């Protein structure tokens, strides 16, 4: 099963890359670099999806994350006192506790990942085209309500974001009730 070995290798490779860039996100002192690291991490994950033959999802992930991270980088520049990281300031606190929490989380997650018997592996995977077709059926059938709900969620987030982000008018007329 050479295919399987290759799959395993690439899976591990992109996975480790994702984790590595994830770590970099919090290790660098530059916001912009953090954003870029996150972008690489997410792209690596997208690559993992491709390795796992979920092509639609992989492409979607890479595209979405690219746009998202560029927006994020923009915000970095806006909101950071020192976006370039020149002052080498520390942007973290309670590191030890957080490390421990992360460690415990890691152990717990690994335990849940390894210890249970996940059952037999699946052999046949639908082809990419079939997947998309099935996803469409799923989307318009059983999951239609969920899909619509997701739409509502996006709508809500749009209204919420605009309501909060747009500066209030300076009229300052308030009625006391």
């Amino acid at each position, binding site marked *: 099963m050479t295919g399987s070995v290759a799959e395993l290798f690439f899976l591990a490779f992109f996975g480790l890359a994702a984790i590595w860039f994830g770590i970099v996100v919090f290790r660098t002192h530059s916001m912009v670099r953090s954003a870029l690291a996150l972008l690489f991490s997410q792209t690596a994950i997208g690559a993992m999806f491709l390795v796992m*033959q979920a092509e639609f999802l992989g492409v979607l992930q890479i595209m979405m994350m690219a746009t998202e991270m560029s927006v994020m980088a923009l915000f970095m520049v806006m909101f950071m006192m020192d976006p370039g990281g020149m002052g080498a300031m520390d942007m973290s606190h309670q590191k030890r506790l957080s490390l421990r929490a992360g460690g415990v989380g890691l152990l717990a997650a690994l335990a849940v990942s390894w210890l249970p018997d996940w059952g037999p592996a699946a052999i046949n995977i639908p082809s990419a085209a079939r997947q998309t077709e099935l996803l469409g059926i799923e989307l318009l059938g059983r999951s239609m309500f969920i899909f619509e709900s997701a739409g509502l969620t996006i709508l809500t987030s749009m209204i919420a974001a605009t309501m909060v982000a747009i500066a209030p008018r300076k009229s300052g007329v308030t009625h006391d009730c």
Partner: protein
Amino acid sequence: MIVELSVALSIGAGLFAVGLYGALSQTNLVMIMMGIELILAAALVNLVAFWRYLHPDAMSGQMFVLIVMTVMAVEMAVGFAIAIARFRSRGSVEMEEARELKG
């Protein structure tokens, strides 16, 4: 024991741990949101792995991935909106400064 699944899940676990660490340790709202993104990414990895190696016929797995991606996006949107509002009000999005409300 499926090796690939284990590897994928371990990578998910790693991403989760890093994300958790980030969410807890960062002082800046935007950085915390990056941590959240990583946790969600971990969930994505898990979901795709489960779909791929255990339940390839259950398209709800892929559906779930789509939903989670949506969640990532909208959370970013609202998060940044709130960050803007905060920045406008206080000139900073440092969490350390946000402790007027307590007790």
